[in-house]
């Protein structure tokens, strides 16, 4: 893969069919700090290195998140196993280091924290999560395995694909509006994943910004005016190997 991010060919909606899958392992490896699976576009950017510029309350909250991963208390062992696999598949966490998203989901459910609403045709979020775990294991049994975690990766992805499309039926799924269950699950997982500074490193997000704030937020008249000195530089726009070959330098 070329790293010419001025172009948009790498984006899923823009890909030509023969490039159906952009391999994230073609991306630069992280050189500073951590990203999930150690790939990203900002190999020399570690948002945690900026923490001296954050207010103390925010710093505490963010560092707690990284260093003090909560124990699983809401889900039982089997549920946790199944849902951890679900979380890793739908967030494409296929290698270490992984953000322990399920631990944060578990903590939120354990503390009884909610997001402010429940669909009239859905149970409470905690019950939705338990039924999803049951439903995934039931799906595994239909495919000849006892638990979702024992399925092959391809099968797991395929089940998640049907989950996303609301195409799971029978057993636990018949007690849920499956599309809404997907949106409940994704809401919790995305919140857990993208609140983690490792994910901020991967996407180049500036992170907490008080009290420093920003002075460069993009003037059309200044080159590089969109970036503060400390913000991550996006990986070079060209793949140096390919570039060297193309220009006949080797």
């Amino acid at each position, binding site marked *: 893969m070329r790293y010419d991010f001025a172009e948009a060919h790498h984006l899923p909606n823009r890909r030509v069919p023969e490039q159906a899958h952009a391999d994230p392992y073609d991306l630069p490896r992280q050189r500073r700090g951590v990203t999930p699976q150690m790939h990203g576009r900002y190999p020399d950017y570690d948002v945690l290195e900026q923490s001296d510029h954050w207010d103390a309350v*925010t710093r505490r909250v963010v560092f707690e998140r990284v260093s003090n991963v909560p124990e699983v208390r809401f889900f039982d062992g089997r549920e946790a196993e199944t849902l951890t696999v679900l979380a890793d598949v739908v*967030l494409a966490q296929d290698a270490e280091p992984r953000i322990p998203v399920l631990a944060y989901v578990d903590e939120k459910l354990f503390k009884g924290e909610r997001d402010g609403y429940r*669909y009239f045709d859905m149970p409470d979020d905690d019950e939705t999560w338990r039924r999803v775990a049951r439903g995934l294991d039931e799906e595994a049994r239909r495919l000849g395995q006892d638990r979702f975690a024992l399925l092959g990766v391809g099968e797991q992805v395929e089940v998640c694909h049907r989950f996303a499309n609301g195409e799971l039926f029978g057993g636990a799924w018949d007690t849920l509006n499956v599309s809404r269950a997907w949106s409940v699950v994704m809401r919790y997982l995305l919140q857990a994943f*993208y609140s983690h500074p490792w994910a901020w490193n991967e996407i180049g997000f500036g992170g907490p910004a008080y009290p420093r704030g920003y002075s460069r937020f993009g003037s059309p008249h200044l080159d590089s005016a969109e970036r503060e000195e400390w913000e991550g530089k996006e990986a070079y726009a060209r793949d140096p190997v390919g570039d060297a070959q193309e220009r006949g330098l080797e």
Partner: protein
Amino acid sequence: MRLRSVVKGSVLMPKDNDSPFLLDMHKRGVQNVDRMERYPLSAPVDLVVVGAGAGGVTLAQRLARAGWRIVILEKGPFWDPDRDWVSDEKGSSGLYWTDTRVIAGNDPIEMGKNNSGVGVGGSMTHFAGYVPRFHPSDFEVRTRDGVAADWPISYRDLKESFERVELELPVAGQDWPWGDPHSYPHGPHPIAGAASVAWQGALRCGIEMRVGPVAITNGVFGHRPHCIYRGFCLQGCKVNAKASPLITHLPDAIEYGVEVRANCMATRVQIDESSGRCTGVTYVDGDDIERFQPADAVAVCGYAIETPRLLLHSTSRRFPNGLGNQSDQVGRYAMVQGATQVAARFPQELRMYKAPPPEVSSEQFYETDESRGFARGFSLQTVAPLPIDWAEHVQADGHWGQALREYMRDYAHWTVLGVLCEFLPLPENRVTLASETDRHGMPVANFSYSLCENDKRNVACATKVMEAIWENAGAQDTLKIDRYAHLVGGARMGFSPDDSVVDSSHRAWDCPNLFLCDGSVFPTEGAANPALVIMALADRLAALLKAKRVSRPADALRKGGLASLRP
């Protein structure tokens, strides 16, 4: 006016509100809590206000200056932004009303972070900051367009209130060409690269945009500092630059004797069965102890979900269906705005997370245009989701797994436009009580919502306009999310008890000393964000009450409150 708008850091300050001077340059939040009045539960105060948001705090500040003794009950905490707020998306969830509401209908409206606040300052602590005025047409939609309802008041009734509140927030923006053209006390903020591409795209398809209007200081304003463009407006402004009643009105209100009781959930407005007047409010305090605060009058300012919920729960022999609900109007005509967003991808880095999310907007499509095939219109505004919101945006377009991660990694190249489509008020779009109860045993709200054909056409048209802007701006890819924003109506003001809950003076038709002063009284919603309008309504109501011009026998009122209305 022209001169005023070009003087950066306006020297004009509000006359009857010292809040900006009661703050501390080097600390956040309210500094005069130590001096706050404490009223005993044994004697009636002049007014109990339920809800410390845009309506309640503004009303209390005005009336306190006229000598009223006032207690505000607030369900959530008394924020100290230095201690309680963080520059972090997930860590800000305490700002949102996250207790469960049941959502139903063909188009259930997701609640919580996007539209519901809790704590002193209300939803404005985490609103984006856009504070447009309503247009004159908004008050006469039935007359002009044959749909929805007219307001029992006109733009003229609110014009001076708009101006007063704009000076208190203060509002920064360019001279405004739409609706009733006007200027703002602070000049426009600089705009980020992310917003400027929307501006260029709009210009290329003949759409004019303007910078602002935002309730964010752009210069000296008492002891409030300048904005630092950190982009966390929706997570509570730790800077004191973005307005919320916590800093714009409450400090002055406290100075004039208003008491705020935080962590106090109102559960019932009590009435005297023989006279039908309300006698005060029962609430559960922070120690879970039930208390009753007697008062000569009650103002419910709990917004479009909690105001109807409290009224419906305030049943009595005299009002078995709830207070103010004799003609079955409470909870009806609740509204949200269609708030579809289209994100666009550009070759250069834009890093939309910097600078305030609200930057430039357009009201060119605000009014009815018959050629579009639907009544009323929409406004266009730039927004700028932080990573969690951006992930929800990507997911709404159908992506997960590697595709989601790919779009997320592309974050720096994206920017987002949103719309606010005026939806029509429908009687079936209603707040009722669910069978499920909260931890105080009070039934939670059930909010049912279904779009009508006009609403759907409006959203479809607005979406096409956003797509056209991005195409003209040279976007390489777009992602769309259908969503909704803002909550108004549910206890509307009107011309008669048959079609509304309160009259043009915000007074409940059924109960002479009960007032509603929040977004729930809106008969229609316009295509504007509601915060400024709610504050302006509170300003007007306070003026009416102070001047004894409410629609009741004037001699029943005496200086200093409504004591003579006491049963």
